[in-house]
């Protein structure tokens, strides 16, 4: 499984702070995004960044491993 986390406005639009996506060999970050974007289009309208295992992921073709933690995030507004 891939654990996908949501925070702030994205979590509100998804209606959950965490979902699980089944892992398959060769899975890439863009595959998880595409799958979830179909289910939650309004949430992904505001997604600007992704992180994998706690680090910014700029390349959506990044390969994922089983049990990866993925986060799709809107622009930050701390401070």
């Amino acid at each position: 499984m891939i654990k996908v986390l949501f925070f702030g406005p994205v979590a509100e639009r998804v209606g959950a702070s965490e979902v699980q996506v089944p892992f398959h060999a060769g899975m890439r970050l863009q595959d998880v995004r595409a799958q979830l974007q179909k289910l939650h289009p309004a949430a992904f309208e505001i997604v600007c960044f992704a992180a994998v295992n706690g680090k910014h992921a700029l390349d959506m073709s990044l390969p994922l491993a089983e049990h990866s933690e993925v986060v799709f995030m809107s622009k930050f507004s701390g401070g």
Partner: protein
Amino acid sequence: MTKGEFTDAVRIQQEDFSQDEEIRALQASSKQMGGIATFIGCARDFSEGRKVTQISFDAYGSMALAEMNKLRDEAIVKFALQDARIVHRVGVVGAGEQIVFIAAGAEHRAPALQACNWLIDELKQRVPIWKKEITPQGDSWVTPHP
């Protein structure tokens, strides 16, 4: 208070912080500081013409803390600081309360002031924290300013 009793230099916490304690901790780390610059971000009680009663913060805690530590390390190198501290609150913060504290200590004032400015700008860009304004008309997530 001895040096060992001070809190971590980078923290995310629900409770309020004391500017005096943070500065004492910064000063305890080095006697070579000729200048200390600080920034405190506070919760305004208005936004875009609306009354704001509280601000609620959500954070990707582990990544936010890691990014804040990276920012501190980078600032220390980039501005030749003696030390720096960053504290950000999460949870619900009342109007008028403190949200974020940054302090930068350097041999001279210019790098301390520049580092403080750089740190808050970078924090807003790089640290995964989101704020929601709670108003009598309803709640709304804040769209970041450029």
